[in-house]
């Protein structure tokens, strides 16, 4: 369980090593359990910083979904800007900004690691 998150104790800078969690809708998941590139196509891809926001929070209220993480440095290596985007109710919110070609979306999907598989979130 990560430390309690607040505006004050979450740094603006996102370290290269930070894991970024993204909710995954069941329709993005292939029969073999891998995640489709279509889960990672948003120009402003919304993610939660795993070090400051427990994955159970990311999935709260989203029964049946899963959560997968990507690493900040990997996204940056794909010419994406990874930046904090604190929200009132989610100070650990961040964005992976940049145009995502199909190749980039596929690379992000392939790098994603399941943190909580589909339906694995606490109800």
């Amino acid at each position: 369980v990560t430390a309690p998150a607040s505006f004050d104790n979450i740094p603006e800078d996102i370290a290269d090593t930070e894991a970024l969690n993204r909710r995954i809708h069941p329709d993005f998941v292939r029969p073999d359990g891998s995640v489709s590139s279509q889960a990672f196509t948003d120009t402003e891809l919304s993610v939660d910083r795993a070090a400051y926001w427990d994955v159970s929070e990311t999935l709260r209220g989203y029964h049946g979904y899963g959560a997968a993480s990507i690493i900040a440095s990997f996204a940056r290596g794909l010419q994406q800007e990874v930046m904090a985007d604190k929200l009132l109710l989610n100070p650990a919110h961040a964005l992976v900004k940049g145009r995502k070609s199909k190749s980039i979306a596929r690379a992000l999907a392939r790098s994603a690691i399941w943190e909580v598989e589909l339906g694995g979130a606490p109800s």
Partner: protein
Amino acid sequence: MATLLRIIISSEKPGVPPGMVLLEDAGSLSSGLHDSLARLIQRQLGFPWRANLRQEAKRLARIALTGVAKGSGVLLYEGLPTPDVTGRHPSAIAAFDLVSGIRSYIDSHTWPAYLPPVVRNRMGSAVASALAEPDDVVKIEIEEDELRAECEIDPSVKDALQVPEAFAPDEPVEVVGKIVEMDKRNLSFKIEAASRTFTVEVNEWQFRKVDSELRWERVFVSGHPRDSKGKTVHNISGLRAATPDEEDGFNLTRELRRGEGSEAYQQVSTRVEKLLALNEGWDTYGAKVPGRRASFFALHFLRDAIGVLLDHGISVPTPFLVPTASGGVQLDWRIGPRELELEIPEKGRFEFLAVDGSSEVEGAASRWTAMRLLRWVITGETV
């Protein structure tokens, strides 16, 4: 990179000096060759054989007559660059199918599924005037970079090419076309479809419906052929206004719906229904609901592609259909080292990512390229 295509037709006739071809023969051979290739391309695009020849198919059949060789009666043709095609020339693929289909008949006396009567008949007519004598032969050679193929058409092969298509009375057919004549006394009406006229025999109730709702309209009719030529359709089971998406033409229902019996189509069809039930913002990040038009276009494209590939003995594995956040859908295949993501952002548009081991290509695709990519991901054949 586009390939270089050359087609050579040799037709030597007694009494015609070397290096010359009679205009009537050259005209007939050239137009027959073009029509045959365009119709084969139309099929490769996933459209029915007997429907009107589409502009898209004609546009892809860009062949120029470049000369008559000195010393014999040889017509030389070359493929011209075709817009939106970066792989093999569509006419090359069609020409190799034409030649291999004829060779297959010469070897086995059976016509392959990929060379149907509508193409054979056209090619038969094209060579007829050049094959007046029993010893006359028309030779067709195809060259595409390092690939070569050839066949010889003699009068017996020409006769086989010209055998008209015969329809079985129990074979369901579908006609789409415009009503041009009504005959109340005989309870029938005539439809013009793809440059042919068909008579449709109906019952009294159906005639009243046509008279009151469909008179002079484009209609869809399903029934059975009364004769082997298929000029009259009776036992009508379906009769309604044609939709804008339905092409004029006369088709066998089993050919049109061939892909629908496949596992791939049925699974994707079920999934389309499921995806259409999603709500706005379904991915929790503001995704749009998959559009009906894009979803059904993808499904029908898949059905048509399955039908085309079955003509060549290739079965299509079930793709993973995934909704896109922008309201489209994407078909994914992973076969060995090859992967294809074929996205349909909206009806009629394709975007793709093709992965082969460590190499990747992506971009917008025409329907032709989408079909070729699908064949590539399944077989590894050059696009």
